[in-house]
């Protein structure tokens, strides 16, 4: 019965934003129950998280620092899913981007910052982008599932980076698996002195806005969305599916690479093996919470940044492991990924009438 408009959002639970908020709240609620069962006071724990992530200038800055790479990986995943592709290779793309930026940033070419910094950033984007493109090529040429391919390529990339940071690219005399520091001409300018918060945050926000505009105002962005929602109709309309696949995977990989770049060019100003681990996969949760909307990624990466920072603070004051943040993230994914749960609630309600 087409005219019944069943798909129109006719219930407050259907709105995606509301759905995301509800998922987050349910996740926090269950997290609280788990805290309570483990013998902690959930309210004081959440209080500590809020305090440690938002309520002081330095806490807020730490949140923004944590948010920066999360925004890139969240955006990378959100973008790929617009064309119906699932890029689970953000972790590897981020590692490669970070390493490439550390290497190019470490080259003493005698270049001024205005050239050296963009070159360094681009090298990181290129590394991540090409790695994403590899998965895209395998999909376009042989029909390999990008889902599996990107997931597996993570191991190749992270172990390759680990090898390089332990071996050929290891800083001379260093006890740790890390590259040498990048030249000052390739370091991201800090927004607040000595706090690791760099202009990468601004770049990320601009990129979210840029991708949003690209998807909605450009012909190629339109094609990407069309393919994502109905590949057969897009093919019928003469859209080159392979071109869309390759473009998407390259751009998504490049954006994920930027997450690595933002970390290699701030703080320690070098690539430290394993330092960025996990940020790539967190992108999935961030994009899910944002319903794959590039603009909403800004907000959702802030939420996750705060959660990470807050749980770090929590682990110091309450002896709760920082993995608590991971648990909350996992719960959020679980609930965001379960639209059936919310629709289920709706049906129950209707039945009850």
């Amino acid at each position: 019965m087409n005219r019944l408009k069943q798909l129109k959002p006719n219930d407050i639970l259907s709105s995606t934003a509301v759905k995301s908020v509800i998922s987050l709240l349910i996740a926090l609620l269950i997290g609280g129950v788990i805290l309570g069962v483990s013998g902690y006071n959930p309210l004081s724990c959440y209080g500590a998280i809020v305090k440690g992530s938002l309520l002081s200038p330095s806490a807020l800055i730490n949140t923004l620092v944590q948010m920066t790479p999360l925004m890139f990986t969240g955006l990378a995943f959100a973008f790929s899913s617009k064309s119906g592709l699932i890029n689970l290779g953000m972790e590897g793309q981020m590692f490669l981007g970070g390493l490439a930026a550390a290497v190019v940033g470490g080259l003493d070419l005698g270049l001024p910052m205005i050239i050296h910094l963009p070159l360094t950033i681009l090298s990181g984007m290129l590394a991540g982008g090409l790695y994403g493109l590899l998965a895209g090529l395998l999909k376009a040429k042989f029909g390999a599932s990008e889902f599996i391919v990107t997931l597996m390529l993570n191991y190749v990339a992270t172990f390759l980076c680990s090898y390089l940071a332990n071996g050929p690219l290891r800083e001379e005399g260093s006890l740790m698996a890390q590259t040498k520091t990048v030249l000052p001409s390739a370091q991201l300018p800090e927004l607040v002195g000595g706090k690791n918060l760099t202009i990468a945050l601004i770049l990320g926000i601009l990129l979210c806005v840029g991708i949003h505009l690209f998807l909605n105002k450009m012909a190629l962005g339109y094609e990407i969305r069309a393919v994502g929602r109905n590949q057969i109709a897009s093919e019928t309309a003469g859209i080159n599916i392979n071109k869309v696949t390759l473009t998407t995977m390259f751009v998504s990989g490049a954006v994920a690479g930027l997450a690595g770049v933002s970390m290699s060019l701030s703080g320690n100003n070098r690539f430290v093996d394993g330092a960025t681990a996990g940020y790539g996969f967190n992108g999935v949760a961030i994009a899910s919470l944002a319903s794959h909307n590039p603009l909403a990624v800004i907000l959702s990466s802030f939420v996750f940044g705060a959660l990470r920072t807050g749980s770090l603070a929590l682990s110091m004051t309450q002896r709760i492991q920082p993995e608590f943040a991971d648990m909350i993230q996992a719960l959020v994914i679980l609930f965001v990924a379960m639209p059936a749960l919310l629709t289920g609630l709706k049906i129950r309600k209707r039945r009850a009438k």
Partner: protein
Amino acid sequence: MNSVEMKHIIKRYPLVTAVDDVDFCVESGEIHCLLGENGAGKTTLMKILYGMTMPDGGSILVNGQETDFRNPNDAIHSGLSMVHQHFQLVPVLSVAENVVVGQEGQAFFHFNKKKAVQEVQQLIERYGFHIDATKKVGELSVGEQQRVEIIKALYRKAKILILDEPTAVLTPQEVEELFVVMREMRSMGITIIIITHKLKEAVEISDHVSVMRDGKMIQSGIPTAQCTVESLANMMVGRQMSLSSTRRTKNKGDVVAELKNLTVVKKGKKVVDNVSFSIHAGEIFGIAGVEGNGQTELIEALTGLIRPESMSLKVDGKQLHGGANGFLRGGVGHVPENRNTRGLISQMTVAENMILGYHRTERFSKKGILNLGEIHAFAKQGIADYAIKVPNENELVSSLSGGNQQKVVISRVFSENPRFIVVAQPTRGVDVGAMEYIHDVLLNLRDAGAAILLISADLDEVIRLSDTLSVIYEGKLVSTTPADTLTELQIGQLMLTGSNEEVEER
């Protein structure tokens, strides 16, 4: 006595009242036709009767007893059965297995197949179904599969049978066979409710007709003898219709589309076999045929979606190359046979769907940047020109009715003034009002000089619109004649057997 009595039935959905205070009575042992356009509420009303949908108000009496079916199982236990438009059969199981599935009772571990086959075979013979109970359902034709569904209902001791648009998928011959079976069932005392929007059939088969429009019962239980196709059409649509009238081309021009030697091979089989034709400006070239005789592949080859074994397609003398994009640019318009998979992106807006495929034209984008102002103006114009019922161009296409969705496809294709248009199943699943409208648009476009290839499983449609009528059978065009040369029966025979000799011999 009345088999079914529904009183003051109400069913509300958030944005529409699907069934609005409807009374509906069916006499015992009659064939009762429930008539209405798509979306008129007839299927919803029957789903309420069948326990699939809960009404918001009203009462239902079956065989004089008040009922409160919570699900179809309750209905089946009370002797009520419904055959849906989409069959619920397992293709790899035999006819008998399909019939008894779910009814094996306690015999889970040792199911008496022999007995089941026997029982089903008896049922088949009693009602004259002409089906082999041991055959796999996947090997049956659509018409035969439908009969299996009916047998299933009878096996479950149905006394009241609801058929939802049973003729939508059948050839004229199969429709006749179905009607024979229905009359046979009636003579055995079974009450039949048939949902349809086809007027001719309603007049032919039923004892009484009830007409619904916009969720309301317009006329209930009119004796069919007092009805004509015209009077029913007017009730159904609420205005005067001119369904049977048509007009043939007056100014056939030069050849626009010239197809030579199209052969498509799929899994080692020639699904399209050396098809050639030429279509002139101002001509509708109709191809009738039972579905699955190569129509889909023919369409895909003509629109550049697949690469055939051999083909030469010239439009206005120019050879076409490349994939779908090349053919589109070469002037081939395409109204796909399945609008939901090929034609539209249901989760995008009306405006976005109206430029699909044409979004790279100069009009809609410059240097890769979409001209949103122009796109929205164009969409608004299309909505106005084609009378598409939608609040604005930013609504998702999925919220539109089938007829309005089809209008979106048609407005997109036609506004580009293609020279050659491949139109497949243009009115499948659309209501009578939209159908009349779409037919009009096609005829107007032809009169304006377009060459149109019409491929449709709806024989009435092909006969009504075509200036040249061809029949496809097993990938070959087995007959190509000017309009009005063959009778409907002859065409039906060609569709089923590839030749019409048999008819002449009779």
